[in-house]
C-alpha cells in the first residue's frame, strides 16, 4: 500500500478564491493510497516547502501530490523539495488546479468538483510512479555563439572570462553587427564605435574566443552537452594567416559596388572590409562583383598584395565542431518601408530610414559624419521624422511595437540640431521612453534641441521642387499640418533576421508568428529556449535596445557557464525504456525516433525445455532519447514505454478522470 501525501495550495486567493480547499482536502483524504492531506497558503514558499518535507518525514510518506499551479511552473521546485526530504524526486505529481481550474472557472461548485478530479488524476498517477535517477552524460566544454553583434560579442567575452572556449560564427565578414553602423547611442550619446570597438578587439585578442566570420551554421545534430554542428566557412579568397589588413588591395580594386554596411549610401570595392574598424580586419572577395570572377581578367588585388594572401581558387569549407551549448544571437533587420507607397521611400532620394541616417551622421560613415542629404548633398534645415513606420500596423503584418524607435528618433532630433542646427518635426502616435534616463533624454530633445513633436500620422509625402511636403494632422490641435522638409527619416520597424525560421528549424527551436525565437518562459526563462542547451540573446528574441541586449547576453552567458562548468550533465530520466521480456524485436519503433536513439540488440534467454536462444530486441540510448514517446504508440505490445508518462500512468489517469 502506498502512503500518498496530498498538499493543496491556496496560492493566496488565486486558487482559494474559486476552489473550496476544504472540500478538495476532504475528497482527497478518501482517495485510494492517500495517507495524509494538508493545505498551505503558499506551498511554493519557503515555509510551504518545509511543511511538505516535515510531513514526508513524520508521516513516512512515499508519494507526494501537490495541488497548486502548473507543473511547467514549479514541478522542478517541488522535486527539489521532495528530494530534500530524502524521497526520490520523481515520486511526485502536480495537480494543476490554478491555470487549468481556479483561474478559468469562476463558478466555485464546478471549479471545486474539477479540482477534486484533477487531484484524483494526480493521486492515481503517482501511485504508479517509480523512483528514477538522473543519468549523467559528459559535456563538451565548448560553447557556440551564432551571430557576432553586440549580443554575441558580450556573451563570448563573459564565457571566455569564465575560462571556457567559445566560437562565434558571424555571417558577414566582420563582427560588430548593427551596432557598428550606429553613430551615437541613447540615452548617454556615447559614440557607438567608442564603446563597441574595444569589446570587438577584446574578443579578437581573447585566446578562448575563436571568431569565424563570413561563416554560417549549416546543420546541428545531437543534444544538450553533445551538439555536433556543421559550419560552412564561405570562401574569403584571402589567406587570413598571411594578410596584415594593410588595405592596398581594396584601394587598388577597380570594382565599385554599393556597400551593404552603408545601406547603399556609400560604396565599397569587390574586395573589402565592411567598415574601417572591422574585426578581423581582413577583407573578403565578393565573387558576384569581382571582375576576375565575372570575366577572368583583373587580379589587381593579387598583384599588389605585399604578402600574397589572395587565392581565387579557395572553396567553401564545411567544418564539423562539437559544442556543449549554443547561444543564438542573430539580431534583427530593419524593415524595408517601401510597402508604404505614400511615403515615397525608394522614389524620393531624401526619404531615408533611421539606420541610413545613422550612416549619414556617423563620422566613419560614407559622408564622414556630414549630414548631406542623398539627393543634392545639401545640409537639411527642416527634417521630418515619422515614427511607427511598419510597427504597430497589422495591415503591414507587424503588430508589435519595435521598442527602440522613439528613443533613437529623439536622438536623431538632438544630433540634427546639435550638428547642423536643423529643426526636426517628429510625427508620433505615442512616445515611449521606458528606460532609465530615457524620459529625460526625450525632454532634452524637445526643450534643449527644440524638436517639434506633432501627435498624428503623416498621410502623404511628395516632392515639391527641392522640398518634401509632408501632409499630416496634429490630432491634439485637430488641424491639418503641412511641413515642407529637406529630409524625411522613417523610424522603420525592427523585424526578424531574414532566414530566421530556417535557422530555427535547423536548431529545432520554435519561433512565433513574427519569426522571433520563442523563449522558454516570457518572464521566468527569457534567455532559454525549450530545447535544452540552446539559449537566446538580443533582438533575435524580440525587439530590444542595446542595454537590454547586453543584459540578455550576460544572462545567456551565465547559463552557458553554469552548464559547461559542471563536470557531468545530469539528464532528465524521463526517457524511453524497453521491457525486453515482451519486446518482439520487430523494431517498428526505430523509424519513429527523431533522435535516432533506438536500435536493435540481441539478448540471450533460456526458454522452456532448457534451450538458450538469442533474439533481437529494441534498445534505447538514454542519452540521445528526449522522451517524446512517439515510439511507444508504434509498439503494439506496450514493451516500449516512456518513464514518467508510461502506458500504465496514462491509463490510470484516464480511469481516474472518468470516474
Amino acid at each position, binding site marked *: 500500500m502506498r502512503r500518498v501525501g496530498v498538499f493543496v495550495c491556496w496560492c493566496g486567493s488565486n486558487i482559494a478564491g474559486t476552489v473550496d480547499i476544504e472540500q478538495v482536502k476532504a475528497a482527497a483524504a478518501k482517495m485510494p493510497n492517500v495517507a495524509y492531506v494538508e493545505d498551505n497558503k503558499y506551498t511554493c514558499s519557503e515555509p510551504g516547502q518545509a511543511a511538505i518535507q516535515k510531513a514526508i518525514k513524520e508521516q513516512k510518506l512515499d508519494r507526494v501530490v501537490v495541488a497548486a499551479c*502548473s507543473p511547467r511552473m514549479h514541478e522542478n521546485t517541488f522535486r527539489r523539495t521532495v528530494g530534500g526530504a530524502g524521497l526520490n524526486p520523481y515520486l511526485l505529481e502536480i495537480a494543476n488546479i490554478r491555470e487549468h481550474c481556479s*483561474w478559468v472557472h469562476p463558478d466555485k461548485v464546478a471549479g471545486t468538483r474539477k479540482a477534486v*478530479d484533477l487531484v484524483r488524476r494526480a493521486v492515481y498517477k503517482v501511485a504508479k510512479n517509480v523512483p528514477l535517477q538522473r543519468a549523467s552524460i559528459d559535456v563538451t566544454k565548448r560553447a557556440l555563439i551564432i551571430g557576432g553583434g553586440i549580443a554575441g560579442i558580450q556573451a563570448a567575452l563573459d564565457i571566455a572570462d569564465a575560462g571556457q572556449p567559445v566560437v562565434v560564427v558571424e555571417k558577414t565578414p566582420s563582427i560588430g553587427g548593427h551596432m557598428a553602423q550606429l553613430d551615437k547611442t541613447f540615452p548617454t550619446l556615447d559614440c557607438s564605435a567608442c564603446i563597441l570597438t574595444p569589446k570587438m578587439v577584446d574578443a579578437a585578442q581573447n585566446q578562448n574566443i575563436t571568431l569565424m566570420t563570413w561563416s554560417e551554421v549549416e546543420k546541428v545534430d545531437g543534444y544538450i552537452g553533445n551538439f555536433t554542428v556543421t559550419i560552412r566557412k564561405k570562401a574569403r579568397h584571402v589567406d587570413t594567416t598571411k594578410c596584415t589588413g594593410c588595405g592596398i588591395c581594396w584601394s587598388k580594386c577597380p570594382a565599385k559596388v554599393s556597400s551593404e554596411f552603408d545601406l547603399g549610401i556609400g560604396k565599397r570595392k569587390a574586395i573589402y572590409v565592411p567598415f574601417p574598424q572591422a574585426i578581423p580586419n581582413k577583407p573578403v572577395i565578393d565573387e558576384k562583383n569581382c571582375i576576375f570572377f565575372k570575366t577572368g581578367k583583373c587580379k589587381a588585388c593579387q598583384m599588389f598584395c605585399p604578402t600574397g594572401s589572395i587565392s581565387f581558387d579557395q572553396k567553401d569549407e564545411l567544418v564539423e565542431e562539437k559544442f556543449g551549448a549554443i547561444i543564438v544571437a542573430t539580431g534583427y533587420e530593419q524593415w524595408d518601408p517601401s510597402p508604404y507607397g505614400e511615403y515615397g521611400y525608394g522614389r524620393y532620394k531624401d526619404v531615408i530610414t533611421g539606420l541610413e541616417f545613422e550612416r549619414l551622421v556617423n563620422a566613419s560613415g560614407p559622408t564622414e559624419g556630414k549630414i548631406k542629404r542623398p539627393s543634392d548633398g545639401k545640409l537639411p534645415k527642416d527634417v521630418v521624422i515619422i515614427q511607427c513606420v511598419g510597427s504597430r500596423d497589422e495591415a503591414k503584418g507587424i503588430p508589435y511595437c519595435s521598442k527602440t524607435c522613439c528613443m533613437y528618433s529623439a536622438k536623431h532630433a538632438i544630433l540634427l540640431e546639435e550638428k547642423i542646427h536643423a529643426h526636426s518635426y517628429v510625427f508620433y502616435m505615442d512616445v515611449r521612453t521606458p528606460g532609465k534616463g530615457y524620459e529625460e533624454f526625450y525632454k532634452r530633445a524637445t526643450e534643449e534641441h527644440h524638436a517639434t513633436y506633432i501627435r498624428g500620422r503623416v498621410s502623404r509625402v511628395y516632392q515639391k521642387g527641392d522640398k518634401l511636403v509632408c501632409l499630416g494632422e496634429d490630432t491634439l490641435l485637430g488641424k491639418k499640418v503641412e511641413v515642407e522638409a529637406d529630409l524625411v527619416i522613417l523610424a522603420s520597424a525592427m523585424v526578424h533576421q531574414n532566414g530566421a525560421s530556417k535557422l530555427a*528549424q535547423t536548431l529545432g527551436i520554435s519561433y512565433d508568428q513574427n519569426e522571433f525565437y520563442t523563449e522558454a518562459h516570457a518572464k521566468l526563462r527569457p534567455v532559454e529556449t525549450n530545447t535544452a542547451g540552446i539559449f537566446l540573446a538580443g533582438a533575435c528574441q524580440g525587439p530590444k535596445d542595446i542595454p537590454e541586449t547586453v543584459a540578455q547576453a550576460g544572462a545567456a552567458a551565465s547559463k552557458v557557464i553554469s552548464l559547461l562548468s559542471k563536470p557531468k550533465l545530469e539528464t532528465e530520466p524521463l526517457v524511453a525504456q524497453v521491457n525486453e521480456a515482451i519486446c518482439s524485436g520487430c523494431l517498428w519503433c526505430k523509424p*519513429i525516433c527523431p533522435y535516432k536513439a533506438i536500435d536493435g540488440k540481441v539478448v540471450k534467454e533460456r526458454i522452456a525445455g532448457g534451450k538458450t536462444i538469442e533474439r533481437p530486441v529494441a534498445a534505447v540510448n538514454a542519452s540521445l532519447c528526449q*522522451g517524446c514517446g512517439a515510439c511507444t504508440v508504434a509498439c503494439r505490445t506496450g514493451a516500449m514505454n516512456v518513464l514518467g508518462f508510461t502506458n500504465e500512468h496514462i491509463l490510470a489517469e484516464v480511469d481516474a478522470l472518468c470516474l
Partner: protein
Amino acid sequence: MSVNEKAAPAAGPATNPTTATPAPEGWEPKIIGFACNWCTYAGADLAGTSRIQYPPNIRVIRVPCSGRINPQFVVRAFQRGADGVLVAGCHPGDCHYSTGNYFARRRYLLAKRFIEYLGVEPERLQVRWISGSEGQKFADTVRELTEKLRALGPQRRLRETL
C-alpha cells in the same frame, strides 16, 4: 462524486446503446483532453494566466508530445464514460521533438475516421493544433466542443456498463 453524477441509470446487460434515451437531469458533458506539454498544455496555462473563462467540462492529461497519444487512450476514455475527447499538440513544424506531431497527424487522420466508422458521432473526437501562444484558441475549442456535446447528449456507444 465525479462531474458525471451517478445519475446515469446503469443500463441493462447489453441494451442497445444507440437508442437515444434523453440525458439525465443536470447532465454535463465530460471531456478528456490530451495536451502536449510544450504547446497545448502551455496554451492552456496561458488561457489561465490571461484569465480566459471557458466551460469546466474538460480534464487535461499532460503528455510529452502529441506523438505520445495512443489512439487506444482515446477509445479507453470513451469506454470509461468520456462524452468527448480532445487530442491537441503543436502546429506541424513547431514540434519540440520536430516530428512528433507529424506522426500524430497520420495516426489521427486514420483513427478519427475509424472511430467514426465504428459508430461514434464525429464531433466527439476533436484533434486540434494549439500552440503555446493560443490560449484563446484553447478556450474556444473547449467551449465549442462542450456546446456540441450538450447538443449530442451523453456518449453511450463505447461506454462500458459495470
